[in-house]
């Protein structure tokens, strides 16, 4: 696959995936991993995990991970294509729903829709966490970092940058 074909593949995949990213960009992480690593072999597991980490360390919306994947696969233009594909269709959708929403506020189907999506979103986020953990935790020390962060963040409010800073220092020191 070269040239235009590659851009088309990127655009088609991310545009489709965006429409199924319910509950936010992180819900799509397992699907992006499945396709980019397992199907297309654009990245290795380790590269995917590092890409995810870089996106987490960058300020801004979580969706920015798709820019980095596009850049990795097909340069700056690739990053532009994946970003626009991931945002375009859902933004059009949001624009028109946003303007119409006053009309269906409080409707029974509106409530059923949002309540019905909660457990699905939960399953997707749990999958994201699992996929990231299984692509990153190759040593028992990495598992300890995941478990330790999960427990700490469950019981106390942790700013993500603190968690990342501690983890990065432990990793750089060779303790992971």
């Amino acid at each position: 696959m070269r040239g235009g074909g590659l851009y088309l593949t990127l655009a088609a995949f991310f545009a489709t995936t965006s429409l199924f990213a319910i509950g936010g960009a992180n819900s799509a992480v397992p699907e992006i991993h499945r396709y980019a690593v397992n199907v297309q072999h654009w990245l290795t597991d380790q590269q995917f995990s590092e890409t995810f980490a870089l996106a987490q360390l960058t300020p801004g919306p979580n969706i920015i991970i798709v820019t980095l994947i596009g850049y990795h696969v097909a340069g700056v233009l690739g990053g532009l294509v994946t970003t626009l594909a991931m945002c375009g269709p859902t933004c059009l959708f949001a624009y028109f729903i946003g303007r119409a929403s006053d009309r269906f506020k409080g409707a029974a189907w509106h409530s059923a829709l949002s309540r019905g999506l909660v457990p699905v979103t939960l399953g997707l986020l749990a999958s994201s966490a699992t996929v990231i953990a299984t692509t990153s935790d190759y040593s028992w020390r990495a598992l300890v970092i995941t478990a330790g962060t999960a427990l700490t963040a469950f019981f106390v409010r942790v700013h993500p940058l603190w968690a990342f800073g501690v983890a990065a220092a432990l990793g750089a020191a060779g303790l992971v």
Partner: protein
Amino acid sequence: MTSPAQIPADSQTIPASPATIPHPDAAAPPPSIGELFVAFAKISLSGFGGVLAWARRMMVDERKWMTPEQFNEAYALCSFLPGGNIINFSIIFGGRLRGPAGALASLAGLLGPPFVLILIIGAIYAHYGELPVLRRALTAVASAAAGLMMATVAKMARPLFRNRAVIGPLIACMTFAAISIMRWPLPYVLLAIVPISIAYAWRRPA
């Protein structure tokens, strides 16, 4: 834009309280296209792992472009639309105030700065990504990020498992198994499971 005539008719059903300001005009004058861009660029650059808190601070506390109620309503809408929640929020907010140009300015403010930043980071990573120190640090950050997500999931799951509910947790577990164990494609899984989940929610009103 919603016509002003609709708002009073709608708000008559809500008992007036000092905390409820029914219309954006009551809060502050609507922002210009340029102000929208700058506001969302600031939100974007200050937000690590969760831009929501910053969006709320900017929109409700600092600029007073929205009341807390309006923010909650808009955010609830965004979280059930597909795509990034904060991205949808920028589109809906900018679009309601300034039409398509406002939506585009908000989106450009939100995505532009991190887009440039991540390309720079990506270029540096392409050069130095093989350094063992960097690899180990990044892998550790990913491990920590997975942990943070697990904590979020656990917090979100608590209300779902109350009231001896069975179907909600079952749907969450089925989604989890289909995506992360079976590794089935997301569209097929959602096309199968979302209608069931919504139908169940429909039959059992909250």
